[in-house]
């Protein structure tokens, strides 16, 4: 059974991989033996340092690419680099995203546009290009990182919730379209996870959210990465079009 978790010889590409959930996914997939490519807007020198760190820690190859997912040319170039270096793509963790919180009436159009550009258009472009590389080998697993608010909404997050709901629609549609090519597409909908995105929440707000979590703890990036490993591996070889909630029971 454990051999099904072995990703040796595979290549996983993680967008927004330098920190938070992306970083946890990157380390977890590397620990399972996968070579890693990741992108981030962080400066290239820092990305090279992270890549070296991953290579030394897990004895896998790792390539860091500076890329803004809002820029189609940069995204295309990133896939060209991935293809040139590794010649394959087995797993995409489509994670790059931003969250801006404001009441609907106070949400600027710029903020709406930024979240749509990064969380939706950037994710769609990665989905498109990754699936084309995967189609060459007639196999692959795409893991879209959505959010619990894309399923049930949240006050003060209308635009963010809209962007994350869009990812769920894209996941279902792409799963149908790409299944004949051996490509699985699933989504993870994290709940309240301890990342930089929570910096905007004050102690009172955190306490209030904590009351809605049946498991009575804030999730860790590793909780999401564990689900990503399942979806990346052959343990989920007959799973596509699904949304896995990693939320400690917020929806129960």
């Amino acid at each position, binding site marked *: 059974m454990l051999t099904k978790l072995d990703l040796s010889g595979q290549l996983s590409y993680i967008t927004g991989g330098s920190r938070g959930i992306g970083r946890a996914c990157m380390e977890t997939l590397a620990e399972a033996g996968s070579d890693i490519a990741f992108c981030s807007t962080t400066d290239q020198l820092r990305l090279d340092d992270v890549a070296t760190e991953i290579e030394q820690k897990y004895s896998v190859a790792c390539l860091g690419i500076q890329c803004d997912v809002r820029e189609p040319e940069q995204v*295309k170039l990133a*896939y*060209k680099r991935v*293809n040139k270096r590794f010649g394959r793509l087995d797993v995409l963790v489509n994670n790059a995203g931003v969250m801006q919180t404001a009441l609907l009436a106070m949400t600027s159009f710029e903020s709406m546009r930024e979240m749509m550009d990064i969380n939706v258009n950037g994710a769609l472009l990665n989905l*498109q290009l990754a699936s*084309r590389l995967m*189609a*060459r080998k*007639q196999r692959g697993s795409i893991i879209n990182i959505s959010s619990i608010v894309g399923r049930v909404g949240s006050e003060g997050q209308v635009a963010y919730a809209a962007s994350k709901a869009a990812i769920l629609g894209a996941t279902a549609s792409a799963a149908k379209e790409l299944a*004949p*090519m051996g490509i699985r597409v699933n989504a993870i909908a994290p709940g309240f996870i301890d990342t930089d995105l929570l910096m905007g929440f004050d102690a009172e707000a955190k306490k209030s959210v904590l009351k809605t979590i049946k498991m009575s703890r804030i999730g860790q990036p590793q909780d999401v990465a564990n689900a990503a490993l399942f979806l990346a591996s052959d343990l989920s070889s007959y799973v596509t079009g699904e949304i896995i909630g990693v939320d400690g029971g917020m929806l129960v």
Partner: protein
Amino acid sequence: MEFDENKLRAVFAEALGIPEADVVPTLEYNTIPQWDSLAHMRLIAEIEDAFDIMIDSDDLIDMSSFAISIDIVRKYVDEA
């Protein structure tokens, strides 16, 4: 890598499941049941793999006949 029209013809034949003799310049997308949208994606994947190129989405959409595909694939191979 040099562009090789015969190689492209062979890829078309293999991806679409038709004889190489049927892969003529006038062969067009959606004019035979074997070249539908799903087959087009399979075809593009096999062309990219065979010639070690990555075709932009706009060109992918433009590749609506074997004749046009020759020009487009040749462009990528020459640029590589």
